[in-house]
C-alpha cells in the first residue's frame, strides 16, 4: 500500500521537490547578521542587514565602551535597518573605542568596533538636534560663484546629506553583503570530502577494533 501510494504520486513528489529548488542558493545565508557602523558628525550611524542583503529591521543595538564594557547607548533599528543616535558626552570624554553590537534576540549577533580616533573631538557640537554634516570641497558654479561652502544654508546641506544617504543605502547593504563571502562550491565539496574521509577512518578503526576483539572471544 505504501509502495502504491508513492508510485501513484510520483509526479506530485517530483513537483514538490522541484518547488524547493529555488531555496537552493549557496550564496544566501540569511541567518548571518551583518553590521556597518560609522561616525557622521557627532552622531553614530548603524545599519544592519542579513547575508542576503535583506534589511535588518528591529535589531537591538547596544553600544559599549570596548575597554570597560559599560553600555553607553542602546536602541533598535527602524524598518529600514537604520539606527542613529547622538554620541553621549561620556563616550567623547573617554576617548575609548566603541563596540557596537546588533542582535535579533534569536541567537544571532554581529559586532563592530569603532576606533577611538574616529570619534569627533569634544569641542564638536553634540546637541540633540541633528547637526548638518560637513560638506567640504563643493564644486563652484561659474555663474554664481560661492567663496565658501558655508554659504549653503544648513537646511540645504542637511537635505543633500539625507538625500545622498538614502540613495546609497542599497549600495551600503550590497557592499555589506558582498564583504561577507558565503559558502561556495569548494567549501561544500570540501565538507562532503571531510565526511567521506571521516567515514573511511571510522571504518578502519571499527575493523581494527573487531580484529583485536575477535581473538579474545
Amino acid at each position, binding site marked *: 500500500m505504501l509502495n502504491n501510494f508513492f508510485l501513484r504520486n510520483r509526479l506530485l513528489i517530483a513537483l514538490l521537490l522541484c518547488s524547493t529548488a529555488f531555496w537552493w542558493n549557496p550564496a544566501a545565508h540569511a*541567518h548571518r547578521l551583518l553590521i556597518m557602523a560609522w561616525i557622521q558628525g557627532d552622531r553614530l550611524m548603524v545599519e544592519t542587514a542579513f547575508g542576503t542583503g535583506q534589511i535588518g529591521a528591529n535589531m537591538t543595538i547596544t553600544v559599549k565602551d570596548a575597554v570597560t564594557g559599560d553600555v553607553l547607548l542602546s536602541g533598535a533599528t527602524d524598518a529600514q535597518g537604520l539606527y542613529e543616535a547622538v554620541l553621549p558626552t561620556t563616550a567623547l570624554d573617554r576617548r575609548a573605542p566603541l563596540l557596537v553590537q546588533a542582535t535579533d534576540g534569536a541567537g544571532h549577533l554581529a559586532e563592530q568596533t569603532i576606533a577611538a580616533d574616529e570619534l569627533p573631538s569634544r569641542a564638536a557640537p553634540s546637541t540633540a538636534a541633528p547637526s548638518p554634516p560637513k560638506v567640504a570641497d563643493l564644486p563652484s558654479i561659474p555663474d554664481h560663484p560661492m567663496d565658501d561652502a558655508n554659504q549653503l544654508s544648513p537646511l540645504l546641506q542637511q537635505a543633500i546629506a539625507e538625500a545622498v544617504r538614502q540613495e546609497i543605502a542599497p549600495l551600503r547593504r550590497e557592499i555589506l553583503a558582498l564583504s561577507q563571502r558565503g559558502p561556495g562550491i569548494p567549501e561544500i565539496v570540501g565538507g562532503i570530502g571531510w565526511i567521506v574521509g571521516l567515514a573511511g577512518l571510522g571504518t578502519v578503526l571499527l575493523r581494527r577494533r573487531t580484529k583485536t576483539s575477535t581473538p579474545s572471544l
Partner: protein
Amino acid sequence: MHITEGVLSAPVLALGAATAATGLWLGLRRLEEDRLVLAAALAAVFFIGSLIHVPLGPSSVHLLLNGLAGLLLGWIAFPVIFVGLLLQALLFQFGGLLVLGVNTTAVALPAVLCGLILRPLLARGGKPALVAGMLAGSGAVLGTALLAATALALTDQGFLVAAKLVVLAHLPVAAIEGAVAVFVVGFLGQTRPDLLTCALPTATQGGAPC
C-alpha cells in the same frame, strides 16, 4: 539553528558542551560498521541542509533535517550532527567553535528523543511509519527551537521573548521538515525497508544496537 559566538554565557556554554560530550560518547559507542555509511550520508545531508533557505518575512530560516538522523540512527545522530555542525562552523562560519556544544545539544538531543520514542511506530511500516516520519521531522525542529530558546533565556532574555522569536520562526520549517521526512520514510519503505526495521533496538536479537 546556529547560535552565534558571544551570545551565550559561560555556564550555558559549559552545560551544552558537557551534554554534547555525553551524547557523543553514547553515540560513538553504538556506531557499528553497518551503520557507518548511513551515518555519513545523513551527516552530509545535515551539512548541506543549512543552505536550503525558507523565505520568511524580511528574513529567512534554513532547514535542519535533524529529525531524520534521530529517527534512523538514534544516539548515533549525536556524532553525525556534531560533525555537520563542526564543518559548518569551520567552512561556512555558521555558529562557532565555543558554542558548538550548545548547538550540538540543541539540534541532536530532540532528534534522538524523537527517534527513541517513534522507532516502534517506524518499524511497523505503512502509514504508521509515515506518521513517525512526520512527527520526527517536525518534532525535532520544534524541540531544537525550544532548546535554543532555553539557552538564550538562561543567558539574558526572558524565555517567552526568546521562545516567541525562535519557535515562531521555525514553525514553517517544522511543517516542511515533517513533509520531507514523510517522503524520505516513504521512499526508504519502498526501496530499503530494512533501514526502517533496523531502527528498532536489536540488542535482544544479538545484533548491533542501532
